[in-house]
């Protein structure tokens, strides 16, 4: 057997070889490579995320609307835990033993859970008490971040709210990690990129007991947090507050725009809620409450509600007829309590007859605009009705209807102006005429618009032919300009001269004794407006009003919707008028206090379907 003795060398060599390979690998891992020393998971350092404060929100005059409050989350480092007085901790935190036990079990079980706070957003009192006694509870530590604090607790639909990221958000944007906050809706969402700032990272050396021993490598790898950009909003805080006050008790919206710039001065969606409800520990509960509320306060009535515009659409019908040359401002039509033609009857109210363009607008004559609309749609200049209708529709689109305007708020809805093929499908190609779709003339039937589109229409009229896309942010701190889409004028293809009769009609509607909204006139400010009574299948008609003022140098264009307010002049017109007065004069004139009181006292919210004419 001894001939195999030499094999001991081979076996020995194999052992030596393995030892040699291990030594090389160890040298590589421990001496050469720095990858493993610097690894984020290395626990000789503790990485702390420094959460930046969100950008502040100001109104157009520099009034602070929202800033930040520090908030403290309680986290657990499972392997730094030592025996502690659990009863006392439970008492301080106001939780039961089971919750504490579960929390500790959770972080011990899963490494991912360790980033999740054990208790989120401690109240300042609890934080204070616990901070004092923190030494008694090793393994428990705080993570500081900021929460929104609202100096003006309003405009929830506009400001939006901040919530915690979920897995879909994390997947979509690599910036976020578990436990981060982000803007879920409103301005907080649209301008999230600016508001959130940049998270910082601090690497701290810790010893075996988890105590900080200073910064790692003299802070060479630390990054500073960058505070978010402040936003100056276009809204006027005083006007916004006043608008919300007026709308209390109603369902609907106010959108006021500065016509020259497209800046949104007021953005009220009623019923609203206080944005502070969606901050802090009660956020979940409050959100559930709002969600289950039957009047639907989470719904954004200003940019998501689609209504028939009613008679506020008549200026549009009129302008297009003038531009198309099928009528002039001297064109006169009779109205015998309505429009009668080939079995079609468009009811109208009692007013002097016959009327020209301006006075038809003043009195809101259905028959007059039905005539103009039919002339436009059945215009012999075009080969067929569908072509004429397409032209008509193009005017409407250029006024900002149909598609969403592109406001810098999320979830904006468009309106509805059917394409010709819609009627082709419905009635058959070539089998529909001006008469078939006549109710569109007066903003009923198939036409749907959103309140902000209505306000934008008022702005187009105020500007005599163009508009800027309405927007909510005036300035981003540290950024030179806002999106160019909000600084480029959008032209309607209606000539300036055709606006004069429209504006005159709207002036008379408010300022002439025979006008539809004479009672909301202002002694000094010349308001041009148009009432609307939007019939709808849900109950009494909506009260609608669009207006701008002053007539010759418009500073404000406004749209007001009050659901089931019956007549445009009953609720929407006085509210719009008060808003205009407040914005232009700063106060409400004594002789108009009665109107104001009536609006403040009104309440349609909880008895809307009982209202009768």
């Amino acid at each position, binding site marked *: 057997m001894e001939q195999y003795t030499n094999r001991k060398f081979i076996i020995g060599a194999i052992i030596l070889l393995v*030892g040699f390979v*291990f030594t090389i690998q*160890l040298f590589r891992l*421990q001496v050469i490579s720095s990858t493993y020393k610097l690894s984020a*998971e290395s*626990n000789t350092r503790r990485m702390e995320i420094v959460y930046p404060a969100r950008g502040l929100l100001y109104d157009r005059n520099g009034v602070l609307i929202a800033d930040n409050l520090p908030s403290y989350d309680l986290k657990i480092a499972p392997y730094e835990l030592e025996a502690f007085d659990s009863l006392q901790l439970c008492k301080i935190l106001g939780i039961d033993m089971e919750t504490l036990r579960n929390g500790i079990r959770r972080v011990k079980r899963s490494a991912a859970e360790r980033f999740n706070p054990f208790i989120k957003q401690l109240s300042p009192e609890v934080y204070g008490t616990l901070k004092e006694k923190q030494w008694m509870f090793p393994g428990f530590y705080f993570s500081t971040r900021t929460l929104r604090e609202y100096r003006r607790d309003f405009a929830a639909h506009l400001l939006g709210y901040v919530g915690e990221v979920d897995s879909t958000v994390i997947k979509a944007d690599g910036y976020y990690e578990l436990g981060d906050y982000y803007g879920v809706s409103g301005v907080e969402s649209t301008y999230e990129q600016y508001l959130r700032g940049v998270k910082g990272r601090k690497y701290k050396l810790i010893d075996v007991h988890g105590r900080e021993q200073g910064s790692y490598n003299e802070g060479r790898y630390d990054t500073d947090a960058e505070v978010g950009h402040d936003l100056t909003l276009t809204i006027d805080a005083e006007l916004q507050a006043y608008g919300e006050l007026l709308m209390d008790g109603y369902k609907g919206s106010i959108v006021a725009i500065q016509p020259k710039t497209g800046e949104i001065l007021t953005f009220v969606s009623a019923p609203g809620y206080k944005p502070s409800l969606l901050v802090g520990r009660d956020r979940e509960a409050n959100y559930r409450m709002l969600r289950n509320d039957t009047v639907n306060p989470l719904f954004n009535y200003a940019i998501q509600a689609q209504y028939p515009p009613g008679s506020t659409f008549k200026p549009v019908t009129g302008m297009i007829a003038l531009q198309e040359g099928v009528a002039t401002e001297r064109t006169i039509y009779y109205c015998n309590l309505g429009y009668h033609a080939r079995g079609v009857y468009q009811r109208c109210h009692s007013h002097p007859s016959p009327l020209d363009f301006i006075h038809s607008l003043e009195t809101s004559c259905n028959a007059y605009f039905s005539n103009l609309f039919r002339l436009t749609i059945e215009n012999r200049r075009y080969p067929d009705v569908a072509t004429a209708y397409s032209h008509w529709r193009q005017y409407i689109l250029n006024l900002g209807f149909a598609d969403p305007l592109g406001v810098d708020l999320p979830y904006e809805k468009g309106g509805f102006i059917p394409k010709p093929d819609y009627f082709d499908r419905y009635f058959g190609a070539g089998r529909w005429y001006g008469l078939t779709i006549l109710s569109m003339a007066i903003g009923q039937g198939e036409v749907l618009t959103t309140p902000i589109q209505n306000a934008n229409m008022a702005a187009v009229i105020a500007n005599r032919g163009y508009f800027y896309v309405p927007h909510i942010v005036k300035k981003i701190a540290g950024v030179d300009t806002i999106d160019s889409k909000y600084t480029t004028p959008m032209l309607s293809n209606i000539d300036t001269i055709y606006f004069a009769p429209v504006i005159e009609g709207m002036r008379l509607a408010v300022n002439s004794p025979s006008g539809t909204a004479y009672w909301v006139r202002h002694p000094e400010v010349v308001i041009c407006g148009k009432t609307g009574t939007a019939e709808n299948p849900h109950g009494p008609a909506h009260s609608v009003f669009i207006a701008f003022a002053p007539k010759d140098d418009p500073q404000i264009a406004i749209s007001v919707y009050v659901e089931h307010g019956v007549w445009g002049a009953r609720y929407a017109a006085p509210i719009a008028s008060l808003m205009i007065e407040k914005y232009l004069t700063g106060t409400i004139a004594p002789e108009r206090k009665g109107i104001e009181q009536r609006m403040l006292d009104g309440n349609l919210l909880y008895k809307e379907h009982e209202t009768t004419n």
Partner: protein
Amino acid sequence: MRRQIDILSTIDWLSVFLYLLLIIFGWLNVFAVNYTAADGSFFSLSHRYTMQMAWMILSMVVILFIFAIDSRFFSFMAYPAYALSMLMLLSVVVIGTAVHGSKSWIVLGPVSLQPSEFAKLATILALARYLSGYNMKITRPHDVLIAVGITFFPALLIMLQPDFGSTLVYVALVLVLYREGLPGMILVFLLSVAGLFLITLLLSPFVLLIVLSSLALLIYVIVNRKPLHFVLVSLAAACLILIVTMIARYGIIPGNKLAVAYYTLGGLVVGSLVLGIRTKSRIIISTVLVLVVAVGFTYSVDYVFHNVMKEHQQNRVNVMLGLESDPYGYEYNVRQSKIAIGSGGFVGKGFMQGTQTKFRFVPEQSTDFIFCTVGEEWGFLGSFGLVLLYVGLLLRLIVLAERQRSKFSRIYGYGVVAVLFFHFAVNLGMTIGLFPVIGIPLPFLSYGGSSFLTFSVMLFIFIRLDASRKTYLI
């Protein structure tokens, strides 16, 4: 009394010294991992370090008994012990307690026993007894078959538990057979298959090609002893790479590095074959053929694994390989382990200062991954020291085995070397990322009573045999 003194003077104190160093170092690390300030009394058996200390004391007692026993007893007891441990292995499959999905424990009150650990010892004893038999001839197929049967019967039972790591240990005993005369080709073949299988799963195709070709070239040069050929083949390879890259530029063949490697290797193989046939050099032809077979083998492993096997079958293989046996996944373990070892740096963080292992980022840190603590707290110096200790002990044991006059003692000694070496190589290899995660302990260091006691007894039976090497010729 005279005999005792005799034994004291003939004991190989160097081995004992290395052993003591290892177990003290091991205990310090188990202590460092598990000690926390709030632990209370040291003497509570609920602490792992106290428990380990208890096992160490128990082992000392057993070792004293070993020295009190006549050395012939072990040879005599080999078969009964083997039979007993096979019975235990059988019973564990039936009544064992499952830990991590593997039924390998017998729980007796506070003590958990792992029969597969004792089975290693019994198997080495039985194998040594059989191979040292008077009529035994390792070259006779019948005898080899029985030897292999003795070795792999327990492996089969352990496979049923299932415990892949402990099963593999028995493959290491081939080293013993090799020393006793098993044809070297079998060892080479086994090593190659295992090596190929591993590198196929661990390396990318490109690296695999490079490694295999280099190996083929190396073997050829070693066997043929013509260093000039090495230079020639390298030159040819370089030229081919150049040409292939040039062709790839014109878009005739894909230009990625894997394709270039394929074409280059193809050219070399064809060229070598032509040369081999013309010069009638069997070495060239067989080298090339082996290379082709090896490449084919790795690709078929890869292909079968990824394309033929269903996903759940792949998972099963992975689990069997220990690749996915833990909740965090294979990557997590190895990564955490490497971070812990890497963070130790050259001199380490110091005793009890390790945070990676302390805060349990590393799983199983006091059992299979105890080396992480060594790496983290004692740094490269400590790790290298440990490797030296181990290699030193193993080489010393080879020296001891070779100086035995009795065949039984020598074979037993090699058995101990093979098992210790296998554990050392696989355990360290996995913690430093050179080997897939297979859960086997690091002898003398890992926490765990059964394995600690078994390895101690295993080693000291050999030291006992060695101490009386001049007394008996069994």
